């Protein structure tokens, strides 16, 4: 069930009404309803993988209790590694087996040996990377004594499977989400209205910007040999906006939906394309994953405590693993490696925490220096996205080499699809709204709040009309494949 589908538009109000009216405000009943709804939501994708979700939930539920009850560190470690091993084992089989088998066979063939390990014809269960990381954060927090185990299986299951975040995050922490699940939720009018507004903005980003940009990006990337260097730059730009609006749009819908149920999820995006350096970009892009890697990998590896070399080593490790988390392809690993390279100067010169505030806060325009910093960071990000989007490394290299050819200095040609002028205008309008709303949780959080009702409603109707009129052909959310 896609967030941008009619099915979801029917599903959500039904669950909402039942949640607030049929449970008599009892949070235990609300949790049961949320769990049933979440499993139904997941089963709509592919009911066959329900067993995996339930097994993963059971595993972390029981190992969590065992870790907490273990009398000594050795036993704690045993249960922790059992959970990590099985969780990562599933991830390895479903997500990475074919990659490792093919890479191993390629490696052997370079040495003159032939190997055929076969490939598994498995479908990647949607959301596996997300709920696995969910569960891992829970057992790791238990091991570190940051939390106590949740003994109510229903409540714990809601933490893992809450439908707004089930298939593509944000990757929640038990310390943040579980306390909300365990307490009585009261309906809050401003929160619910704000949730609806965030859903609307998320739908606009996904359906109007991402889905339209996807058509151009797909055409240009899939037929890159047919286009000039300047058009390939456009293709990379289209993908840059596609991936941002696709994923942040999804996150907005997820956060907005959760707020309708009185639950706040972790913020996942904070206007990353207005970042002044790569370190700032990574504090603003897929925040829940970046902070997960920081807390559960970077810091346990020693973080920055072991001197410069350890800092550099750990930075490369988390970026490469982060790339690999996205998918079983060398392109993602190179994408991660590139981002590690980008961030290196700020690590070495210790400037990575220079830009913690919001760019041009309280001002209408950035300074020239800020503008240049934003442009350079954006350019580096666009370049890295080429690897992320390319089918394989060879494709990425040929794409880049064609960009840096004589045809770079030519007028780009748009593929003969869609209605280019309105889409470009809408993308520019979107960027302006994002810039103006960059101090908020999401761009239109405060837009029009002081306007009178008809004007405000007109703005909402305009967004709805834009979604209906200018929506691109429906595309799968990119992050569902991860």
């Amino acid at each position, binding site marked *: 069930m896609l967030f941008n589908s*009619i099915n979801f538009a029917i599903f959500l109000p039904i669950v909402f009404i039942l949640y607030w009216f049929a449970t008599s405000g009892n949070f235990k009943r609300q949790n049961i309803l949320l769990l049933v709804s979440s499993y139904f939501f997941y089963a709509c994708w592919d009911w066959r993988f329900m067993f995996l979700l339930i097994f993963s939930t059971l595993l972390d539920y029981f190992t969590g209790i065992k870790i907490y009850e273990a009398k000594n560190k050795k036993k704690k470690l045993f249960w922790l590694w059992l959970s990590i091993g099985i969780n990562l084992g599933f991830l390895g089989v479903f997500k990475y087996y074919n990659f490792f088998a093919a890479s191993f066979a390629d490696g052997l063939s370079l040495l003159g040996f032939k190997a055929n390990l076969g490939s598994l014809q498995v479908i990647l269960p949607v959301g596996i990377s997300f709920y696995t990381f969910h569960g891992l954060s829970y057992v790791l927090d238990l091991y570190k004594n940051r939390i106590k185990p949740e003994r109510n299986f229903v409540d714990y299951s809601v933490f893992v499977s809450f439908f707004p975040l089930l298939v593509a995050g944000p990757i929640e922490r038990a310390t943040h989400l579980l306390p909300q699940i365990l307490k009585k939720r009261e309906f809050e*009018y401003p929160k619910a*209205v704000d949730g609806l507004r965030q859903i609307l903005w998320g739908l606009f980003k996904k359906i109007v910007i991402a889905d339209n940009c996807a058509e151009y990006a797909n055409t240009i990337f899939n037929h890159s040999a047919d286009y000039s260097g300047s058009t390939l730059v456009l293709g990379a730009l289209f993908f840059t906006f596609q991936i941002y609006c696709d994923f942040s749009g999804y996150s907005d819908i997820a956060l907005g939906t959760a707020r309708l149920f009185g639950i706040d999820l972790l913020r996942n995006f904070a206007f990353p394309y207005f970042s002044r350096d790569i370190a700032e970009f990574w504090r603003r892009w897929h925040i829940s994953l970046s902070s997960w890697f920081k807390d559960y990998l970077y810091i346990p590896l020693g973080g920055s405590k072991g001197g410069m070399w350890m800092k550099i080593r750990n930075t490369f490790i988390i970026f490469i693993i982060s790339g690999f988390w996205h998918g079983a392809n060398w392109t993602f690993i190179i994408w991660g490696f590139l981002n590690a390279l980008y961030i290196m100067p700020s690590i070495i010169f210790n400037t990575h925490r220079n830009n913690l505030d919001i760019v041009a806060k309280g001002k209408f325009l950035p300074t020239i220096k800020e503008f240049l910093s934003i442009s350079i960071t954006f350019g580096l990000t666009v370049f890295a996205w080429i690897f992320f989007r390319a089918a394989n490394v060879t494709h990425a290299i040929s794409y880049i080499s064609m960009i840096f050819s004589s045809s770079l200095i030519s007028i780009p040609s748009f593929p003969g699809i869609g209605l280019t002028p309105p889409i470009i205008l809408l993308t520019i309008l979107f960027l302006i709204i994002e810039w103006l709303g960059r101090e908020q949780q999401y761009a239109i959080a405060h837009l029009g709040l002081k306007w009178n009702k008809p004007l405000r*409603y007109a703005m*909402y109707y305009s967004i*709805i009309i834009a979604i*209906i*009129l200018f*929506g691109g*052909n429906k595309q799968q959310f990119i992050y569902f494949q991860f």
Partner: protein
Amino acid sequence: MRKFLLRILVFTLPILIVAYPIDYLISKYLSESNNYGIGEIKIWKDIYSGKINSDLVIYGSSRAWLHISPKIIEDSLQISSYNLGMDGHNFWLQYFRHKELLQFNKKPKYIILSVDIFTLQKRTELYNYQQFLPFLLWNKDINQYTSSYTGFSTYDYNIPLIRYSHELEALIAALESFTNYHNTNLRIKGYMGTEKKWNNDLDNAKSKVDAYEIKLDSASVNLFEQFINECHDERINLILVYSPEFIDGQSFVKNRQEIISKYEYFARKYNLLFLDYSKDELSMQKQYFYNAEHLNKNGSEIFTNKLIKDIKAQMHNKGYIQ
């Protein structure tokens, strides 16, 4: 909570109130488009408004509407004619158009059915779904018949405006029709001759697969036979025509002969006229085609004249005409 639900209702009420009237208006003007949906909407509109009323009608796929000119037929035979060929669709949907024709127009005296290798297949997806957009919510026949194809969801069939989301070009076509701006006829009485030059379609297809086999749809075969019987019962003269097909493309389908034999079998069984032009000299000359399956304008005009001449001769021989 009450306030929240009330506000939601206040916000959505205008949308719910205007949805049906807006859908009606968009559908009304889109159905008057002369060129949207490869001109198919215009043909549906002509059927439903009883404007076909022709003595001779032509059925088939794109190989019908691109190959047979009703105007040449009218000039030559002095009978009214209309080409109802439907782009990209097999007999399953062609038959539906036939039924609608009979319901809203006078019965034709002659039907030329252009058959080809794809006629007795059934495609699963609703190709050129745009042609059905203005009718979907308002026409039960189209609603029921097209639902066996993938393409439209239950919501598209039953909720106003849903099917128009992401269809900006349809809305522009409706606007053009409303303002009568750029609403030019794409097809004349269902026919369109194209000046296209020979393209790479055949080479591209050959580079992908050596040859392929057509799987006949048994339901379509039964429907085809049922249609022959119905024509017989209605005293409509049915003529089967296999229009020219460029010779180099004929080896592409492995079971081509088996399919043509099927038409020969039905022609024999029901004493129908079956004219096969796939071995005709026209099929040997590339300059009359723009790809292996389709004639260009020059080719289609030569072919239509040839077809009329042959029909006249054959019918004369069979005693249908004096």
